[in-house]
């Protein structure tokens, strides 16, 4: 028996909220850890105290954020089991592997050394401490690698086969799972986006100190590191955009068509939809503004390959659903003990479409007796809502261009040693601090909402993946999780703002703003 529809929707809501909440903290951990490595490397090489103070001050803010990342990350590690029991059984043989490797290779490294980063300053040599900081950065970034390999596999499930005996997917090649093109592109894109967020954070906070004319030496050096690191990262995010992975799996094709609101297949090279109002019901756009050639270039990196439109994808999916019914039919017979050659042959011929057959489970438990109407409905389900994807993608890309402008302008005026008079730029940098988070959440929304109705693209529908819990249990967990999260978030923001306001004076070195300002009136 399938879990109730409302339980599935609540489980989705819970996963979506907790994952997006977790990703408010991850980007800063990913990027700030490298900024700490950069600051500390300069300190080790030049011996200038200010770079040590920078490492320690930005490290303090890193710590406040890191605690929330760890807190919210625990939920995700265990939520597959609590809320997605059938998913865990069905793909655990493959999906569990990167998660376990993440723990052993990355999270252990990061968690063991993070304490030493804070408490090891007087117990380690300069070089040793730099090493520790580097290992924290390496650990957190490796952690992202394995998590994104797991996520990339959900988007494009390669290197796995279905085993009718155990009723689950099993690992065929770890190499294919690791070198999954979707996962590799996703990793580079996601960590680089984290670097952008961290750079914007350091840039904005430093700009605020510069505007207030306090701790300018400290702030200017931080600003410079953030501008350089941010510019390089923004360029990587743009050049290594996620879309280049969008031709690899079935769901990726659907996503590509949806974020472009491309209802009809265009002759190659496809043009890019700069503006449109997608109309899901009538499968068309209103008020289109198109740029020729661009989409084809982005999506296929070529001028002669087509980008398939939504209507055609739906037709392809209908064919696969019918084929999936035959696969399900053969599987049922095999499970009932019929091991005859024709049944095996039927399964082998249609195995790759079994997941599409499972889409019908929602309408009829037996799958094979689906009516024409139900098949059409299931084919319709394979296309997610276009408008939310279309707009989130554009918000993300638009913000990316804005970041490029801010970092490039910062870099330019720094290079000309003419930053201080550009108060407009400093103000823009301050106000831009939250924007990378909006861009990142939009990106994740496109990736995950765009994967619907699947948890594993083309293999396992979301409807089948959830645990058969009761709605009351979900209400309890959702209310509990959200209340605690909101409360802790408020506390975290309070501490962040408090320490940003105090600035490097919080290190109690006697060299910074409040400490020297307090001393001045006395000496005057």
């Amino acid at each position, binding site marked *: *028996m399938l879990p109730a529809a409302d339980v599935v929707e609540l489980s989705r809501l819970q996963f979506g909220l907790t994952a997006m909440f977790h990703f408010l903290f991850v980007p800063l951990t990913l990027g700030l850890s490298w900024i700490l490595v950069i600051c500390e490397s300069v300190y080790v090489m030049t011996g200038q105290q200010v770079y040590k103070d920078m490492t320690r001050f930005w490290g303090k803010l890193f*710590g*406040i954020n*890191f*605690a929330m990342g760890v*807190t919210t990350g625990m*939920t995700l*590690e*265990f939520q*597959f089991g*609590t*809320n997605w*029991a*059938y998913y*865990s*059984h069905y793909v*655990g*043989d493959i*999906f*569990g*592997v990167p*998660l*376990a*490797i993440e*723990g*052993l*290779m990355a*999270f*252990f*490294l990061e968690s*063991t*050394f*993070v*304490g*030493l980063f*804070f*408490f090891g300053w007087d117990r*380690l040599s300069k070089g040793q401490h730099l090493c520790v900081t580097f290992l924290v950065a390496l650990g957190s970034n490796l952690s992202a690698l394995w998590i994104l390999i797991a996520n990339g596999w959900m988007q494009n499930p390669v290197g796995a086969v279905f*085993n009718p*005996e*155990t*009723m689950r997917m*099993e*690992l*065929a090649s*770890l190499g294919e799972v690791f070198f999954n093109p979707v996962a590799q592109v996703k990793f580079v894109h996601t960590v680089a986006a984290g670097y952008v967020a961290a750079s914007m954070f350091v840039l904005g906070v430093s700009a605020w100190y510069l505007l207030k004319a306090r701790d300018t030496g400290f702030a200017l050096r931080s600003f410079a590191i953030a501008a350089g690191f941010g510019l390089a990262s923004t360029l990587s995010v743009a050049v290594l955009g996620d879309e280049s992975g969008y031709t690899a799996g079935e769901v990726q094709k659907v996503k590509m068509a949806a974020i472009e609101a491309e209802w009809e297949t265009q002759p190659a090279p496809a043009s890019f939809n700069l503006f449109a109002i997608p109309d899901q019901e009538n499968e068309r756009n209103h008020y289109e503004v198109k740029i020729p050639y661009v989409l084809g270039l982005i999506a296929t990196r070529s001028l002669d390959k087509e980008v398939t439109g939504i209507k055609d994808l739906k037709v392809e999916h209908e064919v696969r659903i019918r084929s999936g019914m035959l696969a399900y039919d053969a599987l049922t017979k095999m499970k009932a003990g019929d091991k005859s050659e024709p049944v095996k042959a039927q399964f082998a011929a249609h195995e790759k479409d079994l997941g599409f057959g499972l889409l019908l489970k929602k309408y009829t438990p037996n799958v094979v007796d689906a009516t024409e109407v139900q098949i059409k409905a299931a084919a319709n389900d394979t296309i997610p809502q276009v408008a939310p994807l279309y707009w989130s993608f554009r918000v993300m890309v638009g913000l990316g261009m804005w970041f490029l402008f801010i970092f490039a302008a910062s870099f330019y005026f720094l290079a000309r040693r003419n930053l201080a008079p550009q108060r407009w730029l400093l103000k823009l940098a301050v106000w831009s601090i939250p924007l990378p988070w909006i861009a990142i959440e939009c990106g994740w929304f496109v990736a995950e909402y765009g994967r619907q109705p699947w948890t594993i693209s083309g293999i396992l529908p979301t409807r089948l993946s959830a*645990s*058969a*819990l009761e709605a009351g*249990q979900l209400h*309890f*967990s959702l209310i509990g*999780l959200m209340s605690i999260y909101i409360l*802790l978030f408020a*506390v*975290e923001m309070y*501490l962040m703002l408090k320490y940003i306001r105090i600035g490097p004076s*919080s*290190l*109690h070195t006697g060299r910074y703003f409040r400490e020297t300002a307090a001393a001045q009136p006395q000496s005057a």
Partner: protein
Amino acid sequence: MIDYETLKLVWWGLNAALLIGFALTGGFDLGAAALLPFVGKTDEERRVAINAIGPTWEGNQTWLITAGGAIFAAWPLVYAAAFSVFYIAFMLLLFALFLRPVGFDYRSKVADPRWRTTWDWGLFIGGLVPAILCGVAIGNLFVGLSFQFDDSMRVSYGAGFFALLNPFSLFCGLVSLSMLLLHGATFLHLRTDAHVQRRARTAVMVWGLVTALLFALGGVWIKQMAGLHLVQIGDVNGVITPLSKSVQAGEGAWLTNFHTWPQAWLAPIAGIGGALLAALAGLLRWRWPAFLASGLAIVGIIVTAGLALFPFVLPSSLDLNSSLTVWDSVSSQKTLGIMLGVVLVFLPLISIYTTWVYRVMRGTVTIDRIRRETHTSY
């Protein structure tokens, strides 16, 4: 390639090792946090206790996270069934664990006494609740959980959250609490001085005796309880689906393995002996022996539970044949093999660098040190 049967057994050992790793390291963090109101009467005293565990707690908790990942990869059915059948209990565990990372990091960032007291409570709950819930969960394995599989391996559930709060499981919650309080106390006894150390020593003696007593009592209790027998199962070296085996209940069945393999008695002996030794070492002010003895008690107690259940890992009371064993809840041979390789590479590495970090952070945490390093300590 290693044969499937061996891999299945090795992974039983590895998952147990990861959980024991958590109990041995994260265990003293939980215990010390749960002892916080008792060992620290002033802010500075509590800071002594917190800073004794603060720099290394994060890595210790990773044993738990990694065990979760390893169970997902090696025993997907256990991961699926256990976490969902414990849904509400698991959420409560998470809520309590949430208080730890923020509790450690945020407490010292504001000097206001109300702020600090609030986080002291947070750390206390974050230590106490998981210490109890872990035991309640283990207890429920012996009682049996309310889940079953259908032929597509979908889990469904019978009784809800309150069925988990049965007398035996609550009793096991007390055993794990007292065991972790003992471990936390021996650690504080080792790493602090003055009043905090004196109170920790009292706790070592008290909880050492209580742990030994409760654990022995648990053995008597389990003798009267119905356990499970594996009546028939397919070729354990091949692919086995859970529903193909046959399982029966029988009184005292959880002690069968101890009759079959008398050497297994070493585990409960280590459990009781370790706890008593720790109490004795506390009395004699032997700090390291007390800590090591409480570690021995933990290993003994967890191994006892594992051996008693073997080959079961997740017994079901709803449908006995749905119970999961080391033979039929596992991943494919390929996945088990690959993951074994990964563990063999990384577990030694983790042990080496963790040891190094502890060496760097060694030394007694004192009130003087907290005063001297007031801005950089937790």
